[in-house]
């Protein structure tokens, strides 16, 4: 009997997992004993961290795209389609284009994050993000024409992709405006929903003095409730109002509807055991990356490491051995602190982050990784 593994989503987690399984289960796949199907609704794989550089004119959205077919092992059955229903009792996926539905024995949900700007009145019209191609291009246009005024970075939705990116954005904007001789005419304000500048207290403690030194104003306990694009104001649930000329916003995030409709978790995030990555509400279902509620950042490194864990567990299950591999919360992030310096953090469930002193070397390490990422997606790095 053939074991059928379906991977839902071809982002970092899905692509790395597919290639990892193709390597681990090569004999079984070649013998027809295992089938691995990867389903993605876009023929391209997108490496989202590139978008941080688009507003500053350093990269183009096209730099973040490559055909999924060119990255995924030929042993993987790649389907460009959209899953419209997950039936975890019948172990079937309904597909938009089909033909028919797809039966599975093991399902891995790697559906990532989606943006939900409409949850905040006025946000779509009044703000831009760098968490999408269109948002990063619109923000680039605004920034390039900005010679004076107030640039506001507002973290509205949490959890959100790449928790360090809002800090990176204001550090880069500060440096970029200084280099262009505009910083004295452009004020920068950073808002965050809780009482510090980052969810992780260790990273917040590291970032706050840098923001102070750079003259980046901070508003904490600021949960944007409404944006008035005409007046150019952001109003918070706490009753504070901020005027802006350019608003870079981190919109509310969601998972995908089919996950919620399948009863796997709220807002499209899958409730999982944070060590085994098995779904709480269904048998033989795993989730990884942004889609999984493990409490660690929604970051590419997390998806990468979790893919290795799920691959090993699936290999064990298919070969009739106990699955022993577990995820320890490992997370790795470079944090840009300007246009030519960066820091770096590595942490897990037990060990908190301790940001490295910013350096040019770490900045180039980040840029170098952004290039070598394509080897990660192919399962080689």
């Amino acid at each position, binding site marked *: 009997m053939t074991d059928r593994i379906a991977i839902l989503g071809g982002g970092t987690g899905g692509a790395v997992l597919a290639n990892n399984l193709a390597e681990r289960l090569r004999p079984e796949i070649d013998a027809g004993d295992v089938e691995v199907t990867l389903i993605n609704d876009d023929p391209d794989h997108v490496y989202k961290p590139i978008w941080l550089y688009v507003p500053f004119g350093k990269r183009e959205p096209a730099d973040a795209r490559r055909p999924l077919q060119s990255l995924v092992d030929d042993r993987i059955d790649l389907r460009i389609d959209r899953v419209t229903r997950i039936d975890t009792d019948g172990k079937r996926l309904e597909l938009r284009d089909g033909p028919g539905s797809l039966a599975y024995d093991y399902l891995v949900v790697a559906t990532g994050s989606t943006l939900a700007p409409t949850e905040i009145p006025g946000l779509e019209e009044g703000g831009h993000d760098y968490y999408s191609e269109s948002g990063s291009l619109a923000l680039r246009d605004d920034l390039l024409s900005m010679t004076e005024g107030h640039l506001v970075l507002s973290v509205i939705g*949490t959890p959100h992709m790449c928790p360090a990116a809002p800090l990176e954005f204001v550090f880069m904007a500060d440096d970029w405006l200084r280099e262009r001789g505009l910083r004295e005419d452009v004020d920068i304000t950073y808002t965050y929903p*809780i009482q510090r500048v980052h969810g992780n207290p260790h990273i917040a403690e590291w970032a706050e003095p840098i923001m102070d030194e750079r003259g980046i104003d901070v508003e904490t*306990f600021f949960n944007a409730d409404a944006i008035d694009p005409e007046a150019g104001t952001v109003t918070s649930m*706490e009753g504070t109002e901020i005027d802006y000329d350019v608003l870079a916003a981190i919109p509310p995030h969601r998972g995908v509807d089919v996950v919620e409709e399948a009863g796997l978790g709220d807002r499209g995030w899958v409730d999982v055991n944070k060590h085994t990555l098995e779904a709480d509400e269904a048998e033989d279902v795993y989730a990884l990356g942004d889609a999984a509620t493990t*409490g660690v950042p929604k970051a590419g490194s997390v998806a990468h490491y979790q893919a290795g864990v799920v691959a090993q567990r699936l290999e064990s299950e298919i070969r009739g051995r106990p699955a022993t591999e577990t995820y320890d919360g490992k997370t790795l992030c470079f944090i840009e602190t300007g246009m030519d310096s960066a820091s770096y953090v590595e942490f897990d469930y037990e060990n908190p982050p301790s940001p490295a002193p910013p350096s040019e070397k770490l900045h180039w390490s980040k840029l170098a990784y952004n290039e070598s990422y394509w080897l990660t997606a192919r399962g080689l790095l």
Partner: protein
Amino acid sequence: MPTTDIEPTDTVDARGAACPGPLMDLISRVRGAESGDVIRLLSDNDQSLTDVSEWVDETDNELLAVDESGDEYEFYVEVA
């Protein structure tokens, strides 16, 4: 055992979430709530004791009660 007899309108179960997850889950639920609703937040993270009360102090919402039961906490927040 809970000591309050407050009837919540809605419950947010953030047990198992690391900080600031419980507070963010509460804020998210308050966003969509009506004035007068009472949100019950369940958390097993000590940090929530300060996070939640500090945030509520910044708003017009009211922290009606906090129940402690072993390592778990129940916060009752009335939406302004």
